Structures are given as structure tokens and as C-alpha cells.
């Protein structure tokens, strides 16, 4: 079963993460490096904003015609010799893949990097059926060895230092300790190469599915996606329903922006276009190919005109790298497969109201919206979700401190509707605080408001500084 995150866990894990200075250093350095690369490639690609507009337009159009596109995709995939399975939820998708693997007598399952298979918790299900599935993306391989889940959708092991990974390899493989990324990568390459050449069942995600041709497009840098989809006799691609785009000519707009925002590359090292299983006489490619198309809450997102926009997401991970919250707490603290700003939208919709606290884990600063390659208005959707959570039947159970703050804010809101009261209280505050002020600033406010001045000085309130009164509005 999917782990349902709880608000209390989130507050505990984010508090722990914030005080983990080593984690903060790793996140800051990785995010900063990413943003530098992105700035470089963006500067030398003047068409970037045009491509963004095009990508936004195409995705919005595709979601608006998703029903027709899925029918077209299915018939084209089948015409190319693929088996297509629509899974309503994670359990159906897992069930299909596990049964298939059992039916084919799969012994060595290799997995390319895929957030969707994380979402449906495929590895656990295979394991319970007695089938070992090996993650083959280097970062995923590392977190799998540690028994963790990825903490970033592009850089799964972003929370680990090279020393952590060196120690892990020494512990797991009994090799001599090294913290050199080159040596660690070479070790993983040789171990995984043997596994690949003996793999009988491969699973990957999908970046784009072209309805017109029945082609699946997979982007990656390492080659594990190519190997996972060409070496095994049985290949399963797992995609969310929102991955479909209408035509081949639409694709370049996405590929021109995806790598630039995701990793600061112009194009990823490998872009594979897979149309059906191998042809007669081919050395590579699977004998049979299955495509699992997953809903799992996505169609419900379409029903809400505000939330729908989040389905434009192409999983580049850039919003994580710019988010002041993510950069302080890291991916694991979110307690959800999809962390960061976009995760705070997706998770409550895919995993239910138990993840409803996530839209509140944002400063609404808008950095995510600015960097988003498909121009998703993330802060607007987060606000919308907050409103839904507060108004909904399944009201969130907040920790007591938060609940007190919310009650306080409500009282303040009520009071603030009466200008005369506000002015009177302002005068009173100015009078009370005057003896504490020094050069117009308060170094320390006594009592319950002390936290305000713990890290910064607070300007002394002065009664005559109030803004010119506007036309007085009736309260309420």
C-alpha cells in the first residue's frame, strides 16, 4: 500500500531536516550549480520563451482533448504491436505488471528511472511476489541500496555526499573505500552491465507519448533507459495519462526546454523513440511490449479547471531547485513520492486529503512559476488547494500550535475590519513599546512577541505613520 503521509510526520521531518546543516549544504550547492547551468543555456537560446509558450499551449490543448488523444494513442500503439492496459489506480497498475512478470517467469527485472513506478510502489509489489527489481539509474540504484526513496525527481541521491555513497559501496559490496565519483560510477557500471545482459523483464517510465504515431519518447543521460528497453525480452512502459501529445511536430518544443531546465543541457544524452517491439531480425528491442497508462487521480484533477493546469508538468524538477522550502528541508521531509512545489499540488490529488497539508508548505514566493518551462502557475494552484482544504469536508487536523495560529489569524482578520479599533490598538502599542525603542528600532520585544525580534530589529510603531485613511467601508 502507498504510504499515506500525515501532517504530523511532515512537521516532525521538516523540523529535523531544517536543523540538518549538512543536508542544507548539499541541497544549496546542488541547487546553485543547477541554476548556474540553467542560466547559461537559457542565455544562449533566445527562442526559450517562445518554446515555453508553445509547450504551454500544446500541453493545455492536449489535456483539453485528452479523451480523444488517449483513444488515438491506444489504437496506434496496438497497431504497432503493443499491448495497452489502462490502470484506474496504482493497485491495478501494480497488479498488471506483477502478474505479467510472474506469467513470463521473470527473474531479473531492470528498471529505468521512473517517478510513475515510484508512485505505484512497483518495487515493493514485485518483491512481495518474490521478484527482484533493480533500479539502474545511478542515483536510483544508490537510494535503492540504502533502502530509501528518491529525494529529488531528477537527482534522486541529492541528499547524499560522495563520502556517504563511498561508504555505502564499501558496506554493500565489500570494495575498498573511495569517494571518487568516477570510481564509484565505474563500479556501478560493471555491476549493472552484468545484470542488464541477463535481464529478462524491463520497466521504464515515459516522457512523451505521441498519439499520431504510437511512439514513446524517453529522455535520459546514462543509457539505462536504452538498456532497460532493449535488452529484456519483455518491456513494460508505465505512463500517466497526461503524457500524451498529439503530433510528432509538437515534440521538439518540449525537448528544447526540458533538458535546459532540468539539467542545464541543451538536449539530454539519449532520446529514445520507441515504436512497438523489435522487428524481425533485429538484435535489440523486446519481443513483447506493454504500455500501462495510469490514471490514479489524474482525471479528477482535470475536472477542476484550476488544478488541471498542473497536468502540464513535464517533471523537469526545476521548481524544486528554486523553492526556498525544498532547499531547506529536502525531498524526504515531504513524505511523498513527488516533493517540492509541484509535488505539493500532485500529492494531495493523487494520494488524497491525507497529503492536504502540503499546499501550505510554501511561501508563495513565485520562483517556481517563473522557472517552470511549461508556465504552470504553481502559487495560484497552491492557494486554490489551500482554500479547498480549509473549506472541504475533510478538514485538516493541524498540530495544536498551527491551529492556535490559525485561530489567532482569524481573530486578527475580524479585528482588522474595524479601522477605529486598529488605530486605537496601534496607539496603545506605540505607547507601550516606546520605552523599549532605540534609534527608532526595537531590539527586543518582551513577552509572547519576543520571537519577532530574535533575529532582526523591529521598527518602532508610531501612531502618526498610519496610511492616509481611505473611504471608510462598512465592516463585514
Amino acid at each position, binding site marked *: 500500500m502507498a504510504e499515506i503521509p500525515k501532517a504530523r510526520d511532515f512537521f516532525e521531518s521538516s523540523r529535523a531536516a531544517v536543523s540538518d546543516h549538512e543536508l542544507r549544504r548539499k541541497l544549496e550547492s546542488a541547487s546553485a550549480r543547477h541554476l548556474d547551468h540553467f542560466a547559461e543555456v537559457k542565455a544562449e537560446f533566445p527562442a526559450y520563451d517562445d518554446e515555453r509558450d508553445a509547450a504551454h499551449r500544446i500541453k493545455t490543448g492536449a489535456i483539453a482533448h485528452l479523451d480523444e488523444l488517449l483513444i488515438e494513442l491506444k489504437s496506434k500503439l496496438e497497431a504497432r504491436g503493443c499491448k495497452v492496459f489502462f490502470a484506474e489506480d496504482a493497485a491495478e497498475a501494480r497488479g498488471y505488471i506483477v502478474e505479467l512478470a510472474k506469467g513470463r517467469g521473470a527473474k531479473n527485472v531492470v528498471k529505468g528511472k521512473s517517478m510513475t513506478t515510484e508512485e505505484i510502489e512497483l518495487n515493493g509489489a514485485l518483491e512481495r511476489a518474490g521478484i527482484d527489481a533493480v533500479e539502474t539509474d545511478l542515483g536510483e540504484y544508490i537510494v535503492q541500496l540504502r533502502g530509501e526513496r528518491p529525494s529529488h525527481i531528477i537527482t534522486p541521491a541529492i541528499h547524499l555526499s560522495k563520502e556517504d555513497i563511498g561508504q555505502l559501496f564499501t558496506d554493500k559490496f565489500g570494495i575498498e573505500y573511495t569517494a571518487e565519483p*568516477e570510481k564509484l*560510477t565505474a563500479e556501478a557500471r560493471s555491476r549493472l552491465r552484468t545484470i542488464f545482459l541477463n535481464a529478462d523483464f524491463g520497466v521504464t517510465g515515459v516522457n512523451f507519448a505521441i498519439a499520431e504515431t504510437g511512439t514513446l519518447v524517453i529522455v535520459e*543521460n546514462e543509457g539505462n533507459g536504452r538498456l532497460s528497453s532493449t535488452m529484456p525480452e519483455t518491456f513494460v512502459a508505465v505512463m500517466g495519462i497526461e503524457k500524451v501529445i498529439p503530433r510528432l511536430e509538437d515534440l521538439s518544443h518540449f525537448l528544447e526546454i526540458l533538458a535546459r531546465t532540468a539539467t542545464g543541457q541543451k538536449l539530454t544524452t539519449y532520446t529514445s523513440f520507441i515504436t512497438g517491439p523489435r522487428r524481425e531480425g533485429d538484435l535489440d528491442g523486446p519481443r513483447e511490449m506493454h504500455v500501462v497508462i495510469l490514471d490514479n487521480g489524474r482525471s479528477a484533477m482535470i475536472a477542476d479547471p484550476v488544478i488541471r493546469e498542473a497536468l502540464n508538468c513535464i517533471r523537469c524538477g526545476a521548481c524544486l531547485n528554486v523553492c526556498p522550502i525544498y532547499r531547506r528541508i529536502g525531498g524526504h521531509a515531504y513524505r511523498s513520492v513527488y516533493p517540492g512545489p509541484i509535488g505539493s499540488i500532485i500529492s494531495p490529488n493523487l494520494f488524497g486529503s491525507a497529503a492536504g497539508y502540503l499546499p501550505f508548505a510554501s511561501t508563495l514566493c513565485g520562483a517556481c512559476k517563473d522557472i517552470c518551462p511549461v508556465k504552470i502557475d504553481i502559487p495560484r494552484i497552491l492557494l486554490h488547494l489551500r482554500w479547498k482544504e480549509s473549506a472541504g469536508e475533510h478538514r485538516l487536523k493541524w498540530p495544536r500550535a498551527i491551529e492556535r495560529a490559525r485561530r489567532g489569524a482569524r481573530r486578527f482578520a475580524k479585528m482588522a475590519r474595524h479601522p477605529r479599533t486598529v488605530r486605537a490598538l496601534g496607539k496603545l502599542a506605540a505607547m507601550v513599546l516606546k520605552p523599549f525603542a532605540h534609534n527608532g528600532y526595537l531590539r527586543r520585544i518582551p513577552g509572547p512577541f519576543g520571537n519577532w525580534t530574535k533575529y532582526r530589529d523591529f521598527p518602532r510603531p508610531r501612531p502618526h505613520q498610519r496610511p492616509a485613511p481611505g473611504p471608510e467601508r462598512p465592516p463585514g
Partner: protein
Amino acid sequence: MAELHKIIASVKDALGVGARSNSHDAAASAPVPVAQSAHRAALASTFARELEAVGGKFLGILTPDEVTNRIVTLAGEIGAKTVALGQGAVSDMDAIGEALERADFRIVRTIPVADTERAAMRERVANADIGIADADFAIASTGTVAVVSNGDRPSSLTLLPPASLVIVQIDRVMANLAAVLAELGPEGVAANRLTLITGPSRTADIEKRIVLGVHGPKSIHVIVVWPRDD
């Protein structure tokens, strides 16, 4: 470096070398206007620069007879013992294979296989030191080669050996990705597996440090062929 290629290409152009093409289609055998040759040379030069920017090695714009020698030299330079190659879409892979054999390199030729031979053939390709394949297109703006695989030219050639050599015709070097996809068209893309390759296999999964050669080749070398009218 890239400027040099541009100059070489322009010189060849001025000398009339490669001003005509004898290669793969009827349209290409007509005299090529000078303006178009200059345009091709410029695209090839951009391609060379971008390829090197992503860690690939550009071996130059060569005439067909220079290609074979260059490949034999490269195989020696990287210390290869075994070379895997498929059938050429445009290159004369038989001649290349024979030249390599004469120079004492072992050759693995990929041919369409029956199911029972698959594992053994892959093993041989994986154990080769370099794989050679023709590309269908190249993308100048990103330093990318586009390879459609089939029984003669399996995807393994550009994936399993630690080094990869790709050969592309100069008139197949396109300005950008959209142009290549438009040239291939929906049927061309769907005909068989198409792979866009931009530089060597790489990762940044350990502290965002770039390491080359994770699952695919650690090095990729590209030759652009300028067909000559003999």
C-alpha cells in the same frame, strides 16, 4: 577548433571538392550550388563545436576515401583490439571492415539474428572496444546524431562498447531538432527505433559532478563525410 573545420570546409568548397555528390539519392547527384555548400559547411562547423561542448570528439569533415584510414587510425589511438560494425546506410562498411582486418583488428559484424543467436551476438558487441554505425542525421544546434536502428545496424553498436564512432553525411546535418523530425516525418520516426545521441553517456548523480560513461559509451567520435565526385 571549430573555426578550423569551417575553413577546411570552405577551402574544399572553393576547390570544387565535394561540390558534387555521388551518394545516396538522385537529387544529391546534381551539381550543388555554392551557396548551399557554404551553408552545409557552416552547419557542420556548428555541429562540431556543439559536439565538443558536450564531450564528444569531432574527427573532421572527410572525403569517403579518407574515412577508412581515419577509422583505422582511431582504432589504434584508443587501443582497440576488437571493432564492432554494422552494415552502412551510406558508408562502405565492408571496405572499412576489411581495412581494419588488414591492420590486425578483430571484427564483429552485426547481422540480422535468429532468437537463439541473440545473447551471443550481444555479448560479442559488448566485448568490442568500439562500435561503428552510420547516423541518419545530425543536429547542428545541439551536437546530436540521430540513428535509426535495424537488424543491420542495431542500437547495441552505439550503446554497449565503451567507445562509439558515428559517421554522418554532410547533407544530413540539419540546423535543429525540429528540422530532423520534419525530415524523418511520422513514418520515418515510427519505422523502427530512433535514438538521438548527444555526447557520451553521463551522470551527475553524485554531488552533481559530471562523470562520463555510466551505462553507455564513455567516448563518442563523429566523422562528417563530404561525398566526392570521382
